[in-house]
C-alpha cells in the first residue's frame, strides 16, 4: 500500500528550503490528518507546515480545525498571525461565493428548472465539512442539458459575459465538454461555469443530466446539490480523471465527504452502484484507495475489496499510479525533487488521454499548437 515519508527528519539549516519540499509535504499530510499534532511541533517544523499549508490553500482549514480543538491559542504569536490572515481571506471568499450563488439563483429563478450547485459553492451552501476554510474562485452549477441554451441566454442578459474565444475553442466546449464556455460577470468579475453533466462526453462517458438532477438534494432558496453518491463521484472524477498533482485539498474534500456520508445507511452500496452506472468506477476506486492511504479515511474493508475487484486497473498500472499520485498530490511548486516534475507531467498527459479518444486528442494537440504559434507570430508582428 502507499505510504508517506514519516515526518521528523531534521534537515541541515543551509539546505532547509531545498529539503522543505518533501519534508513539508509529509508534515502537511500528517498535520491535516491530526491537527492536534500541530500544537506539539517546534518552531522550525511549524514554519514548514505553515508554508506548505499556504501553498496548498489549506491554512484556513487547518485554522478552523485548531480552533475547534481549542489549541490555536497555544501556538506562537507568529503562527496565529498567519492563521488569522488566512481566516479573513477565507471568510471574505465565503461571503463572495454565497452572494454570487444567490445572484445566479435570482437570475434563473423564472426558468422553473433545478439549479444544482457543484463543488466549493455546493459544500458552502449545504453546510458540508469541506466548506470550512475552503477557497474557491469560480461558481459551478449544473442544469438540465435540454435547458442549457435558455440558461445561457438568461445569464448573458443578466450581466454575465461569455469569454472571447476563437471558433476552435467554441467547438471544443460546445461539442466535447461537459460545460459551456465560462461566463464572467461584467461588473463583479466572478467566473461562472455552467455544466450539463460532470464529465466530458467526448471521452465516451456520457452521464445524462436527468439522472444527476433527479436524485439531487434541495438546500433551500430553490437551490440544489448533488446526492451524496453523485457528489462523491463528481469530486472523484474531478481529482482522478484530471491531473491530481498538487491537489491535496481535493483529496481532503473526498475524505470529508466519505467520512460524513459513510455514516448514512446504504451510502456505500449506492456509491458503488452509481459509479457502475455512470462508468466512473475507476476514479471511485482511486479515491477510496488514496483517501484510505493518504488521509486515513475510514472505509469499510468490504467496500474497498469490492471496488478493487470491480474497478481496479491491472497490477502494473496500479503500481505506476501509486508512484505518480504519491509523488505529485502533495507537491505544489517546482524544484521539489524526487521525480515530482516527471510525475506531474505524466499525470497531465494521462488526464488528457482519459478525457479524449486518441484521434481527437492528437487533433486537439495539433490545433492548440497551431494557435499558440499563430498567436506568438501575431504578437511579434503586431
Amino acid at each position: 500500500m502507499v505510504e508517506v515519508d514519516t515526518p521528523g527528519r531534521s534537515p541541515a539549516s543551509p539546505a532547509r528550503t531545498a529539503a522543505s519540499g518533501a519534508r513539508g509535504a509529509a508534515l502537511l499530510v500528517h498535520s491535516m490528518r491530526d491537527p492536534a499534532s500541530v500544537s506539539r511541533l517546534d518552531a522550525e517544523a511549524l514554519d514548514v507546515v505553515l508554508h506548505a499549508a499556504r501553498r496548498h490553500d489549506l491554512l484556513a482549514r487547518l485554522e478552523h480545525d485548531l480552533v475547534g480543538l481549542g489549541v490555536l491559542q497555544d501556538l506562537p504569536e507568529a503562527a496565529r498571525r498567519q492563521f488569522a490572515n488566512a481566516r479573513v481571506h477565507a471568510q471574505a471568499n465565503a461571503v463572495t461565493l454565497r452572494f454570487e450563488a444567490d445572484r445566479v439563483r435570482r437570475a434563473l429563478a423564472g426558468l422553473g428548472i433545478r439549479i444544482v450547485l457543484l463543488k466549493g459553492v455546493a459544500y458552502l451552501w449545504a453546510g458540508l465539512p469541506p466548506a470550512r476554510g475552503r477557497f474557491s474562485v469560480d461558481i459551478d452549477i449544473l442544469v438540465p442539458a435540454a435547458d442549457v441554451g435558455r440558461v445561457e441566454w438568461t445569464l448573458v442578459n443578466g450581466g454575465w459575459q461569455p469569454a472571447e474565444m476563437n471558433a476552435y475553442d467554441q467547438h471544443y466546449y460546445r461539442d466535447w465538454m461537459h460545460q459551456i464556455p465560462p461566463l464572467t460577470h461584467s461588473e463583479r468579475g466572478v467566473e461562472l461555469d455552467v455544466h450539463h453533466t460532470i464529465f466530458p462526453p467526448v471521452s465516451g462517458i456520457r452521464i445524462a443530466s436527468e439522472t444527476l438532477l433527479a436524485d439531487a438534494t434541495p438546500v433551500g432558496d430553490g437551490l440544489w446539490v448533488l446526492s451524496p453518491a453523485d457528489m462523491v463521484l463528481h469530486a472523484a472524477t474531478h481529482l482522478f480523471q484530471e491531473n491530481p498533482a498538487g491537489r491535496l485539498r481535493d483529496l481532503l474534500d473526498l475524505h470529508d465527504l466519505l467520512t460524513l456520508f459513510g455514516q448514512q445507511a446504504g451510502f456505500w452500496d449506492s456509491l458503488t452502484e452509481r459509479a457502475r452506472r455512470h462508468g466512473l468506477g475507476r476514479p471511485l476506486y482511486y479515491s477510496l484507495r488514496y483517501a484510505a492511504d493518504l488521509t486515513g479515511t475510514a472505509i469499510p474493508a468490504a467496500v474497498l475489496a469490492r471496488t478493487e475487484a470491480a474497478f481496479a486497473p491491472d497490477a502494473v498500472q496500479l503500481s505506476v499510479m501509486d508512484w505518480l499520485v504519491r509523488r505529485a498530490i502533495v507537491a505544489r511548486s517546482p524544484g521539489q525533487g524526487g521525480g515530482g516534475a516527471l510525475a506531474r507531467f505524466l499525470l497531465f498527459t494521462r488526464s488528457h488521454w482519459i478525457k479524449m479518444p486518441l484521434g481527437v486528442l492528437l487533433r486537439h494537440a495539433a490545433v492548440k499548437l497551431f494557435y499558440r504559434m499563430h498567436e506568438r507570430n501575431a504578437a511579434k508582428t503586431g
Partner: protein
Amino acid sequence: MRLGSVPEPVLRAQFRAAGVRMRLAGLCLNLRTDVPAVIGQIVQMYEDLPLEAGVGIDDYRLRLTYASPLRRFVGRRTQIYIEGEAPFFPTPHRLAYLLVEAALNWCIRQTVSNVILHAATVEREGLAVILPAPSSSGKSTLCAALVTRGWRLLSDEHAVLRPADGRLQPIARPISLKNESIGLIRQWAPDGHFSPAFSWAIGEDIVYLRPPADSIARATETARPALIVAPAYRAGAPVTLQPLGKSETFRLLVDNCMNYHTTQRCGFDAIAGLVDSCAAWRLSYGTLEQAVDAMEALLARARMDPMTSRPTITTA
C-alpha cells in the same frame, strides 16, 4: 541585530543560504537571493533594519533569483518568488531592487488581518497623520519633505490600521520618489541617503530615500491617528485648506482602502472609527514649504484641542 551591523561576507552567505529574516510592518519576511548586486543596494537602503536571528516562523518567504539559468549570464533578467509563486514579470538585472520593493509591498497588502489604506502616514508628538491619495499624486514627495523636517515616518505608501486598537503600524521603509520629485527632494534634503536611480522606462526614474534612523528604531511603536489630510499638488498654486465632512471623508478612505472587500465588517468599522476620531482636510499646495507649514499648523491645532480641530463645515 541591525542589518548593517552584520559583516558583509556573513550577510551575503546568509542571503544565499537560509535567507535574511527582516522585521518589517510587524511581519517577519525571509529574503533569499543569489543576485550579488542587489545585496549591496539592500544593505545601503535597509542598513538600520532589525533582523530576526536564527530560524523560526516566517510570515512570507521571498526568493530573488535569475529568471532562468541562461539569464544569469546572457540578457540578465531576475525574478522574485513569493511562497514559490512569481506575481511579477521578470525584470532586467539592473532593476532587481525594484522587484524586492514590489514584493515587500505585495506581502504587506496580503496581510488582511490589518485594514490597509493607500496613504502616506507620518507622526509627530504622538499624533499620526494619514495622507490618503492614489499613486503619483505627490504623497511620497510630501511624506519625504515631512520626515526630513522632524516628522516620524510610518510609511510613504500604506496606512496599516490595526482593527483591534485602531492604531497605525509603522513600516519605515525607503521612500520611493519618481521623476520630478527626485530633484525636488534632493534639493530639499541634500544630506539624505539616496539610492541610485532606477530607470524602468524612458523618462521614468525611481530613486529611494532612506528613512531617518529614528523612524526605523521606533518601528515597533504604533501611533494613534489624529488627522486625515488629502494632499493635492499643483505647481504654483496657492496653499488652501478645505475641511472635509464625515461622509466625504468616509468615501475618501474607502476609495483608498486596498482590502476593503476582503476585510468586510472589520474594514467598515475600522474606517468608520477613523472618521469619528480624526479631523479631515483637503490640502492644496504649490510648494513643499507651504505644505509643511500647513501640516504643522494643523498639528498644532489638533494638539491644542482635538475636538475643535474637527471641521464643522459639511459642504464642500
